[in-house]
């Protein structure tokens, strides 16, 4: 009941951490060939070392980082907007980040300057979230939020389609399309290290908004009078979400619904408290994305299923279910 907030959730967080560790181990072991775990620490150019260190390890680390930031961003956005349906994908942040990345890919800026990709994705996400907030931020009703999200996603989608439409050859068009579907396959450690600092900065910004999110439970007036400068909180959350989500989109494409599903599942375990939900959702998001990334490799399809396709197949029905539930409770 008392003491640091972390202490109350220690069993939950420890459980989630174990789950993440088990899934990460499993993810390392799954692949077309059996490779011993020792390959992770092997030196040199043995096949085991290359497969483990250059193919599977980046995949696992990216799943951890991207899943964690998606879960965290979902929990934080839901707290800010006081709406359980908020999520980086649904509010259009992911597709706008993708648009930023597509622009960089399209004009070949990536070759000039590798950081252009994550930076453009971050910029895209910032613009989308700021616009969303201008449209729907002060009104925690479900409808405005969803409508604003649809409008932003459609706009970003239209511009991405334009890029595909105008792309000079079929190959680069299909490249963009497949990248958009979302995948962690064949990513490199460089990509992980390039995006990690941004994601870490974003996560830090989001994690430190917890008290304000708790206060926002009572609405904006009460949160202000409990000592929070809401303008600052909003800027911190918009910047934090964009920094956390943008680089992930730049690396792995659009992976939706993680930020929707994870906070919803974990909320009852943290007494529905926004602050306590943040860290739990970070762990939960990492676990869910690791599991999904194992899923795409285990599901027997001719071509490996894209990660974003799987999360959407599971997430979209979940979203529908949530709308039903929220609508009933708000009616």
């Amino acid at each position, binding site marked *: 009941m008392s003491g640091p907030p972390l202490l109350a959730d220690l069993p939950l967080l420890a459980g989630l951490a174990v789950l993440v560790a088990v899934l990460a181990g499993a993810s390392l072991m799954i692949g077309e060939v059996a490779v011993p775990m020792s390959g992770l620490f092997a030196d040199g150019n043995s096949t085991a070392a290359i497969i483990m260190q250059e193919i599977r390890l980046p995949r696992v680390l990216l799943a951890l980082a991207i899943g964690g930031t998606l879960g965290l961003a979902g929990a934080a956005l839901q707290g800010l907007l006081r709406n359980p349906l908020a999520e980086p994908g649904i509010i259009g942040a992911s597709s706008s980040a993708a648009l930023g990345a597509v622009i960089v890919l399209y004009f070949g800026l990536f070759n000039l300057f590798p950081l252009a990709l994550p930076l453009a994705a971050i910029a895209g996400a910032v613009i989308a979230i700021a616009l969303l907030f201008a449209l729907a931020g002060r009104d925690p009703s479900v409808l405005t939020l969803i409508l604003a999200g649809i409008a932003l996603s459609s706009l970003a989608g239209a511009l991405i389609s334009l890029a595909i439409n105008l792309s000079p050859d079929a190959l680069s068009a299909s490249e963009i399309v497949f990248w958009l579907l979302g995948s962690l396959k064949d990513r490199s450690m460089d990509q992980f290290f390039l995006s990690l600092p941004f994601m870490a900065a974003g996560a830090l910004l989001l994690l430190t908004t917890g*008290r304000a999110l708790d206060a926002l*439970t*009572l609405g904006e*007036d*009460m949160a202000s009078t*409990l000592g929070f400068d809401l303008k600052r909180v909003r800027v911190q959350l918009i910047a934090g979400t964009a920094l956390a989500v943008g680089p992930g989109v730049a690396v792995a494409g659009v992976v939706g619904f993680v930020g929707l599903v994870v906070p919803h599942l974990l909320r009852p375990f943290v007494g529905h408290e926004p602050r306590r939900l943040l860290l739990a959702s970070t762990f939960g998001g990492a676990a869910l994305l690791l599991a999904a990334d194992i899923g795409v490799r285990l599901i027997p399809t001719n071509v490996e299923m894209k990660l974003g396709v799987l999360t959407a197949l599971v997430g979209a029905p979940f979203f529908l279910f949530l709308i039903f539930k929220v609508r009933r409770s708000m009616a």
Partner: protein
Amino acid sequence: MSVLDANGLTVIRSGTSILREAGLSLADGEIVGLIGPNGAGKTTLLRCLVNLINPDRGGVRVNGRPVATLSRPEIAREVAYLAQNAGVHWPMSVERIVGLGRLPYSSTFRGLGRRDWTVIERVLEETDIVHLRDRQAPTLSGGERIRMLLASALAVEAPILLADEPISGLDPGHQLQIMQLLRDLARRGRSVVVVLHDLTLALRYCDRIVLMADGRVVADDQAAGVLTEERLARVYGIEAQIHGDGGNRIVVPIGPAQPPARPFETPTGKRSA
């Protein structure tokens, strides 16, 4: 000494004056009833006092310092505010919602400590919601919810409490209990402004009454001095009788004022209602 001082507050929104040169001062250990018809500007005045609204003219001082120069955390530790119709957006437990009142004293890495829980226990008892502590906040009835929100505001332990209609929707027993509680707070040295519609309770429990109409303060005096049958007719447009004396005065509305109330005359002589 006055802990809160507001002068010449004017708020204009979309061309309409919501507050016109309104002012209020609050002394140590005083409980002030803020009354007036719907739309008189009571909530706007309260929101100005805690710097949720920046007035177009006029200013507010808390302990002598302009409220606009204070940071949000500084204001939070001086002035607790209970908003009218504040909602609860997540199904958190009642005791956790009450615990939100301790946020001004927490930090990112520190949750509720022993001192915080002592305060929470006390305000749960004072507002008579101990038995509800584990309930999910959105399942409470209207009256229970107001008591919970008042408990959160009390948990702030700020020297000044501004409560916007804390007893609307409460049953008579709890109305008396909450008014008694607010008066006890004042007796122990805190300063309270409470927006009320119940004129009898305002007379009985408040040291002073501030009567607002049409964005102005039209009377500010000892409780009995403000509420006269003539004023009630003019401001509320009702015929009312005031019976009894001392602490047992009651206000009984009879019906619409006869003849119908003239529009409220502003001090400058302009008609504004």
